């Protein structure tokens, strides 16, 4: 019989680690249990091929909350973000579009394509900033439950109403429209140069099962813009040593604050007594007891796998069953003998130090989406790439490189299901798509790791391979995430909490859900 903890966190993903660190910081005894041998969940670095280290899943960071960085002293524990300097979009006519971290350079480049867009670009950035600022307080608030008429719930609703009122008519209207419109419609109101619109719209489809013309994609775009709130450009950065080091910095902080962390400790179920969580049992039969248990897993695993359905109200189980979590993306990690050579900008250059986006037009992205709608992976996929070894040479052996390719669309429900042949065919489609713009790519690939949604599910515990632990669609946000009446990190089981991306405010390496869950738990303990 091992010692009894105040709190057990199931899953050593970054949100679980953040929750653990905050609880330890408040003087609680905490145990983190991670199924794999590495920490970080989807934010991991692994040496997949000898000498080549990859941010296997999540590969760029921008949303990590600054108060978490401060509170947990993450910089002291190894957090070091190397800024991405540009977003480079090669075009089929061997031209290109490049947006720089440097404002004036971007303006110059946009002028080359469309003076009108160059003028509009700043104003658009301002609008997104303003709307981002308007949404931020909502993201940082525990969702009220409009179906309860308790005093506390009403107070929260009034607070929300006041916030909206404070925005004023114009900003509120922009926000309301943005919540439901398509990224393409929004951008069409602002710009004319198609590759610019397509590349910006791409952040509205990442991780979703939508095309840029699908209503709802504007909100996802905004979600990804949240990272720029304190900066000017889309302030994405690459963590030295890979995204796993973000998780490791949180883990080191948690350890220093006194938390225990066990890897290779897969939890098989939540132990419940009289409707209250009392601990967890591991697959090997070990049991750990605690006052509270916090799940960093997605809602499906949290409620349908770890918990016996009998412990939950039937309508809640139905809600969780209906929670949409379709994965739509894959990841291709390449070990390269040399740098890719783009026809649009040959040779080495600063364009390789940022993001490279294969998103030349709306039609390109929509066609990619059409494939997925009917159960195929995209023959010509949208790809968002970075070359981490250019920024951090330690990621690859000298002279060699690693390339990280986020790919859409790869539907979880592939016709006929995913298998080895399909996985390779998908990898080939990705390499072919890159080769259209960087023809030497095929000759320089030393190794290739292809991750399909099934792989993401099997390896990282992302149900259906969804990188956000549940789609960021309007009916799964705020007080509906993951289910009505249970969006405040609590669950129908006393002492059982949720802290993963499947809760408000959702996915991305922000740490927000872990932090908010810890705050709620500590509130109850006081």
């Amino acid at each position, binding site marked *: 019989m091992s010692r009894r903890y105040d709190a057990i966190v199931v899953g050593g993903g970054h949100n679980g680690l953040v929750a653990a660190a905050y609880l330890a910081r408040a003087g609680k005894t905490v145990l983190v249990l991670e199924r794999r041998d590495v920490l970080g969940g989807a934010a991991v670095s692994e040496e997949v091929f000898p000498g080549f280290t990859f941010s296997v899943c999540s590969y760029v960071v921008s949303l990590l909350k600054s108060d978490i960085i401060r509170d947990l002293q993450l910089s002291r524990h190894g957090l070091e973000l190397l800024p991405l300097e540009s977003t480079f979009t090669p075009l089929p006519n061997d031209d290109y579009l490049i947006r720089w971290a440097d404002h004036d350079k971007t303006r110059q480049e946009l002028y080359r394509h469309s003076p009108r867009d160059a003028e509009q670009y700043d104003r658009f950035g301002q609008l997104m900033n303003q709307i981002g600022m308007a949404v931020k307080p909502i993201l940082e608030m525990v969702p009220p439950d*409009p*179906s*309860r*008429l308790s005093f506390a719930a009403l107070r929260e609703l009034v607070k929300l*109403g006041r916030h*909206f*009122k404070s*925005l004023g*008519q*114009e900003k*509120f*209207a922009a926000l*309301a*429209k943005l*919540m*439901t*419109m398509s990224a393409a*419609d929004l951008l069409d*109101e602002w710009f004319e140069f198609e590759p610019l619109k397509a590349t910006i719209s791409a952040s509205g489809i990442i991780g979703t099962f*939508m095309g840029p*013309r*699908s*209503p*709802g994609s504007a909100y996802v775009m905004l979600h990804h813009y949240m990272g720029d709130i304190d900066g000017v450009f889309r302030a994405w950065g690459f963590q030295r040593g890979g995204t796993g080091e973000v998780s490791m910095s949180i883990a080191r902080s948690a350890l220093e604050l006194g938390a225990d962390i066990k890897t290779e400790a897969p939890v098989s179920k939540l132990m419940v007594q009289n409707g209250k969580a009392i601990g967890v049992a591991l697959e090997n039969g070990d049991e750990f007891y605690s006052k509270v248990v916090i799940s960093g897993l997605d809602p499906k695993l949290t409620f349908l796998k770890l918990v016996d359905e009998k412990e939950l109200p039937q309508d809640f189980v139905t809600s969780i069953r*209906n929670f*949409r979590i379709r994965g739509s993306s894959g990841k291709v990690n390449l070990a390269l003998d040399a740098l890719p050579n783009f026809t649009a900008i040959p040779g080495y250059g600063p364009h390789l130090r940022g993001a490279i986006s294969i998103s030349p037009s709306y*039609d390109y992205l*929509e066609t990619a989406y*059409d494939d997925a*709608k*009917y159960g195929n992976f995209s023959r010509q996929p949208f790809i968002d790439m970075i070359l981490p070894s250019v920024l951090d040479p330690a990621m690859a052996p000298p002279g060699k490189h690693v390339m990280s390719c986020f790919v859409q669309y790869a539907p979880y429900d592939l016709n006929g299901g995913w298998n080895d042949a399909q996985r390779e065919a998908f990898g080939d489609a990705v390499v072919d798509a890159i080769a259209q713009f960087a023809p030497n790519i095929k000759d320089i690939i030393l190794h290739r790791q292809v991750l399909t949604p099934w792989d993401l599910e099997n390896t990282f515990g992302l149900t259906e391979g969804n990188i956000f632990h549940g789609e960021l*669609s*309007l*009916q799964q946000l705020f*007080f*509906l995430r993951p289910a*009505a*009446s249970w969006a405040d990190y609590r669950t129908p089981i006393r002492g059982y909490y949720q802290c993963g991306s499947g809760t408000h405010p959702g996915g991305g390496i922000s740490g927000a859900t872990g932090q908010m869950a810890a705050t709620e738990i500590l509130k109850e303990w006081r």
Partner: protein
Amino acid sequence: MRYDSIIIGAGHNGLVAAVRLAKAGQRVLVLEKRHSVGGIAITEELIPRFHFNTCVDYIRWLHPRLLKELKLEDDRFKVQWTDPSVVTPLPDGNCLRLSADASTTAESIRQFSKADAENWSGFIDRIAQLVAFLEPLYSMTPPPVPDLGLEHLISMRGLLKPLRKYGRKTLVELLRVLPMTMPELLDEWFESEPLRGTLAASAIHGLCQGPMAVGTAYLFLHNHVGCRNGALRPAGFVQGGMGNFSNALAAAAEHLGVDIRTNAIVRKILTDENQAGGVLLGSGEEFKAHRIISNAGPSVTLLDLVGRENLEPRFTRQVKAIKYRGAMARIHLALNDLPRFRVFTDEADLRGVISISPKLEYLEQAYDAAKYGRCSYHPYLEIVIPSLTDSTLAPDGKHTMSITLQYAPYQLRQGEWNKGTKEALLQSALSTVSEYAPGFGDLIEDTVVLSPLDLEEQFGLTEGNINHGEMMLDQFFFMRPVAGWAQYRTPIENLYLCGSGTHPGGGITGAPGWNASREILRDLKN
């Protein structure tokens, strides 16, 4: 002479407003540019001796007080609700029937899926609960969100009745369902393709989006407001044709002293110091009035008739951003006999709506073409044969058939709307019908095709959108026609809107006209 109010456009909403204002003692003039009243609710002899409902075939819901207060329910106006309301023929020789009686429908569904048949009554109950909230919402003026005062909350008291009856949980459920896609909504209930396709078809009516778009669940609910008896996709055919509804309204108006002038094209709304005071006709005639009420769409009214020069640039931008994107064509056929559909055993099957919607993906694929500016090769068709229920519409033994076709995008990427493109559209419709009714082509005596461009030119529907603006969530409730001006007023004093471009939007409901007149009468009192 000087009128109290001039109403531009004798569409049914304009006529409803005219009646209400005349009842309140106003001198009202209605100006209609076409040869007859009714706007899109008309019946015309498009082919000698064959009468067609040119734009809209049937009604689904009328503002509840309309019939009673306007005393329309007499000999002049009779509605026949067909049963089954919708029949969906399938390529394999089966067919699905949706009837008013739930158990009859369930029996029809059972041939495809036992589980779906079991779920049917639960589904229609749920839909009835959700639309029970929409109905009072549709009868109210949208509040000026986010600046809500107590009086606005009081104006929303209509929601209390469904709230008391179904509880706050159902209201939260409505918030969850509104932004859904049709597959998301249907996945929670049904598996069989014909049922999913047939239900999804009423979620795309008039929309340039497929059923997989966010917010199609809202349009689905919109099209079922007022349907309480469980008949989904209800269809009420007006005896003598849809025009009789408008004629009855016009008669009621004239009885109250309203002047109605047809063939009177309004060129300009006359404004002075931001005040509307009259209209200028194409003939050069001028009419003065204390207030002008426009039944035309918001863009026509504000950009064309008022003119940009008289509007604030910010407001102009908002109006220009209203999305129309008509994607519907109408095809009218004079037939020398009843068509013989392979699968129909009963003549009753031909009396309601025949829906070519074998599966949801069929509809989405039809949309895919429109996304790239092409007409669907395999379009979604909604077919009616009104002469079967009302023999006065066609010569003895002959029949009229009207087809609503989607998708036929207003903006074609290649070519334009002309005789050739319309002929191609007709052929795609005929070949689709022939798949289900072999030999059907031989029955055709004559045809009329109305493209979205024709609808724009003949009926003043911007971009051919039958609803005066896309029925999507970003143009819903307090955002219709634009945020800040959803109370039927405009920035021009004494100028009001009363058409489908205002809340609650399209369909032959009379609700926008009713709500607008309430606001006008309120302003009169103050």
